[in-house]
Structure formats: structure tokens, C-alpha cells
């Protein structure tokens, strides 16, 4: 079957990573837009959450799609990590990386696993939280905590590093590497992760520093 052959080839696997990565990036955009309402007030945020959950079908269909995309991304990522580890273990007694700033690319599997851990904690804390307490209250309670907030900030830093390499790598896999666009792409590899870092990590900081006291 051409489809199986394509997806099991080395480039096909990379294309799965890139495509699911792009879809997850789009998910981040919608998520961060909703989260941004926290900076307005608890009423605005609660209103957004109530509105969203007043259409349970949308939430269920969207969550299922997201879960499948995420499973494909992490499953294929771990498989590639395993394959690459098999090829690369104990090759040279001296290894020198010529390319500078390789931190993001070298740590992709690890930042990915931090994000996975975060996702599990996040879903159990918020998605499956008690329906008695309004979500706006849960958010403030949990994220005001020092260790919980710190865990969130560390996770978002990991996400920023993951996106820093991931965004460029995705475009390269799609075949988008052209002198006309490369300058813009290299700027976006910094702007995009910073955008998500500021908006996402700003929320625990907002509560931890007391700025969100009147939230």
C-alpha cells in the first residue's frame, strides 16, 4: 500500500511529526486566545469557559481530534527518538558539534516529555476538576501556589525551546527553505516561542506575584 510505504519511510515519519506539529501549534493558538481572557477578569474568563462548555459536542469532538493528533505526535516522536538513539549510541570517543546553539534541537525529545508530563498534570487539574467549583476559582487557587506555578513556568520554558527548533524543523520538512523567506522564518523561530511563553507563563506569574489579586 502506497500510504503505508510513505508513512513508514524516514521522510514520511518526519512529515507526520511536522503535520501533527503544525496542528498542535494551531491548537496552542486557540488555547492561548482563551487563556488571555484571564488577564481581563475572572468574570470574562468564567464567561468564556461557560460559553465553551455550553456546547459539549464541540468540546468532545475537538478533544478527541486533539487527542489523536497528540498521540500521533508523541508516539512517532518517541519511535524516532528510539530509532535515532539506536543509530547514534557510542559512535565516537570525541564528539564535537560544529553548529552553534544546538540546545533546542538536541533536547527535542526531553522538552517534549516535559510537555507531556505537564499535559497530564494540566488535564487532571483543570479538565477533570470538580464541576462544583467554578474554573476561574480553580485557576487562581492552583496557580497561586509556588511549586505548582513554578512547574507551569518551567513547562512553558520547555515548550518555548521545543517550538524554537520545532517550528523551523516543521517548515524544513514541508520543504519550505528559500532565501526569500529564511530571514522571516529565523525571526519567527524566536518570536513565536516568546509569544506563547509570555502569554502562557504570564498567567502563573500573574497570580504568584500578586498582580492578579483583584482578579
Amino acid at each position, binding site marked *: 500500500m502506497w500510504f503505508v510505504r510513505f508513512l513508514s519511510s524516514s521522510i514520511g515519519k518526519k512529515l507526520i511529526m511536522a503535520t501533527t506539529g503544525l496542528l498542535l501549534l494551531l491548537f496552542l493558538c486557540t488555547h492561548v486566545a482563551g487563556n488571555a481572557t484571564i488577564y481581563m477578569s475572572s468574570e470574562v474568563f468564567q464567561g468564556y469557559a461557560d460559553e465553551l462548555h455550553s456546547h459539549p459536542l464541540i468540546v468532545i469532538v475537538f478533544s478527541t481530534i486533539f487527542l489523536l493528533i497528540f498521540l500521533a505526535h508523541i508516539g512517532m516522536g518517541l519511535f524516532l527518538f528510539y530509532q535515532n538513539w539506536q543509530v547514534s549510541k557510542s559512535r565516537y570517543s570525541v564528539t564535537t558539534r560544529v553548529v552553534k546553539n544546538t540546545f533546542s534541537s538536541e533536547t527535542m525529545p526531553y522538552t517534549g516529555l516535559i510537555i507531556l508530563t505537564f499535559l497530564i498534570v494540566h488535564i487532571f487539574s483543570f479538565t477533570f476538576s470538580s464541576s462544583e467549583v467554578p474554573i476561574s476559582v480553580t485557576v487562581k487557587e492552583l496557580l497561586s501556589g509556588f511549586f505548582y506555578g513554578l512547574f507551569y513556568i518551567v513547562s512553558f520554558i520547555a515548550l518555548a525551546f521545543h517550538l524554537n527548533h520545532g517550528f*523551523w524543523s516543521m517548515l524544513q520538512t514541508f520543504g519550505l527553505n*528559500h532565501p526569500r523567506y529564511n530571514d522571516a522564518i529565523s525571526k519567527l523561530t524566536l518570536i513565536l516561542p516568546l509569544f506563547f511563553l509570555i502569554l502562557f507563563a504570564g498567567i502563573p506569574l500573574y497570580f504568584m506575584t500578586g498582580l492578579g489579586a483583584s482578579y
Partner: protein
Amino acid sequence: MSSINLTLKIWRQHNSDALGNLETYDLDNVHTDMSFLEMLDILNEKLTKEGKEPVAFDHDCREGICGMCGAVIDGVAHGPEKEVTLCQLHMRNFSKGDTIVIEPFRSRAFPVKKDLLVDRSALDRIIQSGGYVSVNTGGTPDGNSLPIPSSNAELAMDAAACIGCGACVASCPNGAAMLFTSAKISQLALLPQGHAERQQRALSMVAQMDEEGFGNCTNAKECEAVCPKGISIRNIARLNKEYLFAALTEG
């Protein structure tokens, strides 16, 4: 002309089945105008006179164009100088008293035959699987009857600069042969003569590349950084596109 004293740690391995190890040799009075391979020649002369086995290494033209030579010098394929092969790396890049670690190009697809000599025929098999034009293109066409944009001709020529030395594979954290394969695919995909078999070529060459046991590309860019011919990873992006299009239409 100045000369330097060096300590060399060289990978010695009797044959493909033997276990290898790094052996240390001291070499005095190495002229800084020597090439790296000439330095190894001097070492081999010394070893021969001492009744020891000389170090086996690949070499041919010694002017940086054939792609036969290559070793990993202190963790960098072809050594510290940019865009040169090992034979064009000169000892002036090293200082008195340096310890140089010399290892063969390593990859799952490159078995070590002896010392620094590796079998790179996996790359040849990738070419054999489709890196050529086999359709009948007729006699010599009239000049300008087949217009090719100058930029395309330049890009094809840049890709064709690949000498197939295998440094990209050796330096890739995953031992991927993507830079090599992408250069070989690009040089034909960019020119009209290569278009007839374009899709089939991408499919067969990638399939062969995977079969040989090369790793996956993780876009680490190391290949581009060590390539003696400065092949750009833009070719890898082109290969990704070529493969995607081919798989969707002819896979």
C-alpha cells in the same frame, strides 16, 4: 616553514569483525605546510620502519575533488577547517603539542574495513537505485533549444558539487544520509533532463537510503556545517518536497 610535535590517537581495527581501539602515537617535526594525509604518510613510514602495521586510510586525488579521503578529527568530519576535505586540511591548523584524535567515519551503514577505512558503498547503492537519467534524450540538442533558467542551472551545479565523501553521514547525530541523497536528487530535479523520472527517482532513492540503515534526519544542520563542498540543507527541503509529491502521485 615551522614544525610541530603531535600526539596522535588513531582508531586501529584489524578488520570488520575485530574490536578496535584508539592507539597513541607521538610524531615529531611535522611540517605545518604538510597536508593531514601527508602527516599520516610520515607516520606510516615511521611505523613501517619500526616493523609495525601502518595505518590504513582512504585517499586518491589528494586535491579535494574525488571524495575518497575522510576521517573524523577531534569529533569533526574532515577536521576543523571549513569546506575542505581531509587531504586539503593542512597541519598549520594545529599547534605544537596538540593531541589529535582520529576516528573513521561512523554510521550503521558504513562498516569499518580497517583502521580509518570504511565501506561507503551504501552511498553507491543509493545512486544505483535511481540517481541517473535513463530515458533516451536523443542527440545533442541545438544550443538554447532547451532553455534552463540560470538560477536553476546554478542550484543544480551547487548540488552536483557533492563528491559523496560521506562526511554528512559521519557528522549527523543520527547517521542520516539526507544531505547526500538530497544533493543527488536535486541536481537532476532542477534540470529538465531529470524530470522524466523525477518521481520514481525520489521514491527509489529514499527507499534505498532507508534500507541501507541510515538514520532519520532531525534537522540538526551538522551535515551542512562539515560538508567540504558547502552543500546546503536547502537541498534536503527540496528532497522532502520531491518525496512528498512523488509519494502522493506515484507512490
